[in-house]
């Protein structure tokens, strides 16, 4: 449906049409734009949350650039972002396999099962996972002992890495051994099949008709070849979309780290991510001005990501 064009003259008579957007505009003006502008302004000040502020110029940003903790937190975040690429694999696999099922009924019920974890509050699954990581009571160590994975890890550590991270006489301390914090954060939520991402992939796959598969089968294509030649190309757009969504998520999210590791990002601050550091400076140290400047830096990074995102997605469409 093309939009009805209304000229300036006519618009004066039909001004009440603008009322349809006014509430939304007011809301985003007050609660999105105003704070954003305020954040930009305050990032140039030493601001402790009171009415008094001291102008600092670019000092907050200079401090941020030399802040070793902020630098380390960006490193951590990059690792988490890269890990997200691999974390998509189970979701793609699951989507492809569900898509290839013959039975409609099963397809439907698997979707239902996928949504079930989604209706459980995020914090509940977060705390259950925190409990899984508990060194003494947790399930992960329990399972690793049962399946002798721990023996393997200790053996690898003793013979290859010599880091002393894994020891036979001690339970694996997932969240307090600095070397294991990042792997734990990556492992968190295994097998990483969120309903939304699987559904996005499934939506991409639905364009493939039965005849394409039949043709492929006549050519004697193996299941894996079918994947690389038919399915993967078709969902590349969705994969990209997912990557960007995940990256932006990784840049913004700090609730997970805050709840799993506390406001200081765990031992050696290894789990510190930029968002958490911002939160920490603002609401633990009271350095609101500095926190704003970290926020601004994050904003520009996300802007860059979104730009890249738009560029790629546009090309595909």
């Amino acid at each position, binding site marked *: 449906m093309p939009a009805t064009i209304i000229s300036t003259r006519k618009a004066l008579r039909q001004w009440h049409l603008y009322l349809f957007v006014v509430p939304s505009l007011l809301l985003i003006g007050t609660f999105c734009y105003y704070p954003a502008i305020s954040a930009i302004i305050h990032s140039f000040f030493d601001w402790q949350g009171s009415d008094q502020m001291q102008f600092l110029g670019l000092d907050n940003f200079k401090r941020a650039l030399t802040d070793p903790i902020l630098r380390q937190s960006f490193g951590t975040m990059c690792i988490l972002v890269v890990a997200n690429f691999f974390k998509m694999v189970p979701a793609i696999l699951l989507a492809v396999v569900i898509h290839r099922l013959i039975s409609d009924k099963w397809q439907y019920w698997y979707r239902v099962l996928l949504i079930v974890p989604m209706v459980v509050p995020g914090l509940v699954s977060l705390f259950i996972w925190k409990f899984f990581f508990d060194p003494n009571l947790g399930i992960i160590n329990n399972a690793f002992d049962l399946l002798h994975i721990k023996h393997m890890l200790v053996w690898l550590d003793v013979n290859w890495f010599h880091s002393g991270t894994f020891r036979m006489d001690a339970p694996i301390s997932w969240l307090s*051994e600095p070397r294991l914090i990042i792997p734990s954060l990556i492992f968190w939520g295994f097998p990483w099949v969120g309903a939304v991402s699987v559904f996005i992939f499934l939506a991409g796959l639905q364009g493939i008709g039965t005849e394409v598969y039949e043709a492929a089968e006549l050519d004697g294509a193996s299941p894996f070849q079918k994947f690389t030649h038919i399915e993967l190309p078709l969902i590349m757009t969705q994969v990209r979309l997912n990557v960007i969504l995940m990256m932006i998520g990784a840049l913004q999210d700090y609730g997970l780290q805050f709840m799993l590791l506390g406001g200081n990002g765990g031992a*050696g601050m290894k789990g510190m991510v930029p968002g958490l550091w911002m939160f920490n400076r603002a609401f633990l*140290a*009271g350095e*609101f001005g500095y926190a704003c400047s970290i926020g601004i830096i994050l904003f520009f990074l996300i802007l860059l990501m979104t730009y890249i995102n738009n560029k790629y997605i546009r090309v595909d469409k």
Partner: protein
Amino acid sequence: MNREKILNTVGFTLLGLCFLSALYSVIFRSVRDADPNLITIRFAHWQLEGGLRGTFDDLARQYEKICADRGQKVRVEQVTIPESVFGNWVLTQLVGGTAPQIIELGSMHIDRKARFFESLSGYVNEPNPYNAGTPLAGLPWRNTFVDGMLSTYDKDLLDYYSVPLSLFTVRLFYNKPLYEKIFGQDAPPPKDYRDFVRVCLAIQQYGQEHGLGIVPVAGSKYNEGQLTGRIAGSQTQKLNDRLNRKRTASVDGNELYVSYLREQWGPRSPEIISSLRLTQSFYQFFQPGFQQVDRDSGTLYFIQSRCVFICTGSWDNTSFRIQAPFEIGVCDLPLPTKDDPEYGQYMKGPFPELSRTVGMGFGIVRGTPHTDMALDFLKFLTSYRGSEYFTKHSGWLPAIMNVPVDDQLKPFEPHMDGYPNGFGLALPASNNQAVLMDNTAYLLQKYPDSPEAFLEAYEQLDAFSAITNDLKLWLAAARRSIVRADTLLAANRALARGGSGIDSSAGRKFYELLEQQIQTEADAYSYEMEMTQIWKERVKP
């Protein structure tokens, strides 16, 4: 399709019903809160240990009743926040202006204390009206506390900001049946460090012989700190004396900063190395991986009889007794003796507990409504009768003099004699140096045979700048509080001059404040000078 429609309708109807009931409770609540005559007093703390919350609730009800008898409609609400989020909760509430009237202070930064909390020196010399008719009647409020409120006096701000409610001591708890099973009926608990080591080794051996998975001590990051932090302090007792220029009972934080910067002591001082070694010597007795687990997992370990000892404070006493299915014994911390071949040389002897044990200080937030009422409630809590009820029902020690204590609390009563305890490498009230310690402390546990790995990692970091920054933060805060006090001084002076005279309360207050101000200024000035000097010396060669 039809069936689906029905199901959908049912689902959304359920949601609608939920919503309606929620709406009802929200509206009902706002109607109830709208009563203009009702004064609500809130007090916030992080003590989620068993037994305490109920007692506080009882006391709050009693206070409400007293107020009702006076014709005031008061509601007292207890706000409990877990320790893990307490720090940011308090800051958010203070900055946001929604803070409750009464907040437990803990180790709050002086800057924040001065900015947000009411100074109490004006009130502490008056008697507590709720003590009328008790042995403490007529005594100035300050003198009804066991330590005369010394421990809540802020040496930097020269003022009182909180009222303590309880007394804390740290003890070794042990599983009595298990202990007696290993060492025989009525075996005495370990009396010093060597004895403790012997006992622990015996427990380990017993565990192996009987194929039991028991370890001597339940550990967690929290419980470990309680034990080793105090015991390791014994190694710096003599150093403590040497660094003490002001001749106070124990060196204050700034003195430690400056002497560290002057390289009068450091991570390689023999005393510090010895304290690190002593700390590490305990690690073999905890369960493996203890550094990682939370306080509650450590507790669980103890409750489940998987270990014999746990070290924690009197605040856990009630929780433990509620949870543990066995009798709990309590004994003193296993300190080394002065003639200990390895750890005796830097020690002076056992330390008195009073100076650091009066705790759970509640402060009053400035600018909140009904602060007078909040203060009155604190007076009620710290009255003889309030304190008596408090200790009897919570199982916590009272901070008020002469209040009778239960027999089971007797082992927790503080020791009064001894020599000041020392300090550790983690400096008190530090912001920047604490981060360095946080980053490296795990190495002590990872290589428990020697502190070398930790020391090397620590020395890689720039402790000098970190501590300078800590000192600078303190100086900045001191300067801010000087400016703030100037306003108060001017106001009181104007009041005193404007007719009421020097002998009036404003006049007295003026001279008190003036004296404090001079002291703060002198302190700030001397540290500032010293810091510049140190920096010059550093830069020159």
